[in-house]
């Protein structure tokens, strides 16, 4: 790329990634890069199937075969795939050749696994000095817990995020598979930062990402509280540390809720106006932020008496018109049918060769000049063998067929 050339449709056009990532936490890191236009080549094998091709424990589902997983599809969009059985030394050599013509390597095996395969950063740097490599693992690849593994709940619990999530009088909550994606977005951030650095200096590097820490830093306010006051903060549902009302309130209908957050004095006045200034709003105990926060149990009951008479959208519209922050707690069904969601268009459809038409998410932002579209569904396993081994690495069709015969390409 250079000045004077036509603008590509996505900002990372021209970047090639060798993708040893699997599971959500790994695959979505390189998945974001592929959505952003990088050519991401997933290296996989029937000898080591990405678990998300066959099941998802966070949604409690298993899939028939390896090409029927909507969750694999969702986070591996735009990617290519080759099959390489790493138990063969020839596979390792081919992987190295691929690294030689690539910019980035991503992997989230247990620390030490890539080294055991002969594909550690020190080796890869020898063959491609400016390679950028992301190693993502549960606790990080250095330190006393580096051999420890984890899944999404391990990350959110180990990081302090689960301790801070849930009812004040309830158990800690690990959240959904979203925590995997938090780690993945962190990995994508590290990679685009390293790409910017390499672009300027020509220097590549290794990045050691701890998924636990990726969430620890997102709950950085809890850490700061301990570090600056010595107090250990505790989860508090929807509530805020100093303002009220600040909660979800039941509305008319089945399991319908509206979230309302009133922070400033102006917002309190606007809130009172919007709900028709009932007498209780004039009570002295609710006259200032301190009083409202100190009496928030009573305040919440009074607010809920107003919301229960309305649908969550009626409550939202009345409050928003007055300048008060309110939104329904939206279910997945409501989101899909929502006019704003449809307008924003971050979800789109792709045609998957086995599953057919699938609704998927593209990049979650709107980029004005390089929109970074979803170009294709996730790859079938090995669908890019010919392109990668033939065009990129220069093997003949006979050589590729031989490698398939020998179980190298498997």
């Amino acid at each position, binding site marked *: 790329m250079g000045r004077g050339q036509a603008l590509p449709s996505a900002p990372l056009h021209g970047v090639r990634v060798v993708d040893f990532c699997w599971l959500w936490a790994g695959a979505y890191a390189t998945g974001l890069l592929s959505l952003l236009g990088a050519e991401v080549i997933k290296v996989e094998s029937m000898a080591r199937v990405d678990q998300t091709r066959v099941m998802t424990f966070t949604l409690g589902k298993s899939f028939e075969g390896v090409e029927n997983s909507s969750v694999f599809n969702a986070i591996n969009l735009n990617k290519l795939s080759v099959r390489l059985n790493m138990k063969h030394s020839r596979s390792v050599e081919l992987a190295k050749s691929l690294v030689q013509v690539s910019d980035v390597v991503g992997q989230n095996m247990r620390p030490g696994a890539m080294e055991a395969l002969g594909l550690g950063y020190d080796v890869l740097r020898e063959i491609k000095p400016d390679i950028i490599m992301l190693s993502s693992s549960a606790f990080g690849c250095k330190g006393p817990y580096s051999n420890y593994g984890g899944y999404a709940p391990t990350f959110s619990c180990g990081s302090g995020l689960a301790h801070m999530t849930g009812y004040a009088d309830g158990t800690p909550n690990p959240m959904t598979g979203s925590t995997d994606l938090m780690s993945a977005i962190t990995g994508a951030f590290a990679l685009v930062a390293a790409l910017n650095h390499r672009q*300027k200096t020509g220097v590549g590097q290794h990045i050691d990402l701890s998924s636990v820490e990726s969430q620890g830093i997102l709950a950085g306010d809890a850490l700061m509280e301990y570090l600056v006051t010595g107090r250990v903060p505790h989860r508090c549902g929807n509530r805020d540390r100093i303002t009220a009302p600040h909660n979800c309130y039941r509305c008319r209908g089945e399991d319908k809720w509206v979230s309302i957050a009133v922070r400033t004095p102006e917002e309190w006045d606007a809130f009172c106006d919007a709900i028709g200034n009932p007498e209780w709003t004039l009570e002295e105990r609710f006259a200032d932020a301190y009083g409202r926060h100190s009496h928030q149990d009573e305040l919440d009951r009074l607010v809920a008496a107003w919301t229960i008479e309305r649908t969550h959208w009626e409550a939202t519209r009345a409050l928003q018109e007055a300048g008060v922050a309110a939104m329904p707690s939206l279910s997945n069904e409501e989101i899909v049918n929502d006019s704003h969601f449809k307008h924003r268009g971050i979800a789109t459809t792709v045609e998957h060769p086995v599953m057919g038409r699938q609704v998927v998410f593209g990049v979650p932002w709107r980029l004005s000049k390089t929109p970074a579209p979803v170009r294709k569904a996730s790859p079938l396993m090995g669908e890019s063998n010919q392109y990668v081994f033939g065009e990129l690495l220069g093997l003949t069709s006979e050589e590729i067929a031989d490698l398939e015969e020998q179980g190298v390409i498997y």
Partner: protein
Amino acid sequence: MSMLNSDTEIERPGALGHIRVVELCTGVAGPYCTKLLADLGAEVIKIEPPGIGDDARQRGPFVDDRPHPELSGLFLHLNTNKLGITLDTATPIGGRILRELVARADVFVEDRPPLLAKELGLAYNELEKVNPRLVMVSITPFGQTGPYRDFKAYELNSHHAGGEGYVLPIHSQEPDREPVKSGGISADCVCGLSAAVAALAATFLASSMGIGQHIDVSKQDVLMSLVQNHVCAYANLREVHSRLGRGFLTVLPMECLDGYIVITIVTDREWRSLVECMGNPAWAQDEKYLSWIGRHSNAAEINPRIEEWARGLPKDELFHKLQANGVAAAPVATAEDLARSPQMIERGFFERLVHPVAGELQYPTTPCRFGETPWRGDSAAPLLGQHNEVIYCERLGYTHEDLVKLREAGVV
């Protein structure tokens, strides 16, 4: 452990040492976005309104519980390594100075409501005329377009609008209780993190092609993308998900002797290891438990059994024993546990920074160890207007007299 305290550590330029950023943001999401860039070496000029500054300065936790705009732990955390100036961007001269700053920047991050941004003259198509390479990032609750564009939302509202709140707490047994948001400021921070990915992808392109662009970040979009599997489950399969318990295998933390532990069993090998750790109890030999789907379908039987075993044991003992045997387990950590974690301490997750008012404090740094370009421990968050002289006089060429006048006029 600290770069500041260590004489042997050689300072290397950060990964983003060549990138200049202007931030016109308040609160959490925008400041967290630019903090991520500043911590990797970018020069970030943070613009705060004169007098009160960033909203985060008014919110705790405060150092030693002393409420003061320079002692907010929240602000100190979200604004490390930045330069700080004050500017009333709503005044004509303030608007002009803002545009001067943006003209020299690689990245401009702003979080004003779309209507207000327009009034302030922050339209990208105007700014790109003076700086075609500019990457402008707008972070707002619902984005720059669409029917909810002008809605107001705090983190609570954004999280519930994003769809994850509705399914939290996951596997709840209390149908009458309200959905809840994710803990602390995490949802806003994820939005800032996500925006930073887009920003750096765009600077990468801007460096090679000389063309910037506008990035419209809707917090709702970002948060929905985190639960895209739930959203798509409805879009593709018409499945409606709620937070009520679906009895999954070992997803929830279990109570143990001195806290909670989460034990996640996915593979058959992990199951066999767990059974071994539990001392091969007779109940676990049932062959219907041999496959994941078998275990998953019988989670209601299995979970209480594991819980019964774990209840009598301390969390750290469980953690190390299970992990040593290849089982993904973690105690539910509190902030104190993390601050004392041998893993985080050895990895240098915490660094000491010195701040003129708050003094020397420990800060959480980054989950990523960059081999060549470490986290930057240069400076703590700026005092309100700390770098006015440097930026206005040395950088933009205003005289000291100009600066005095601007101060008197309340612009700076």
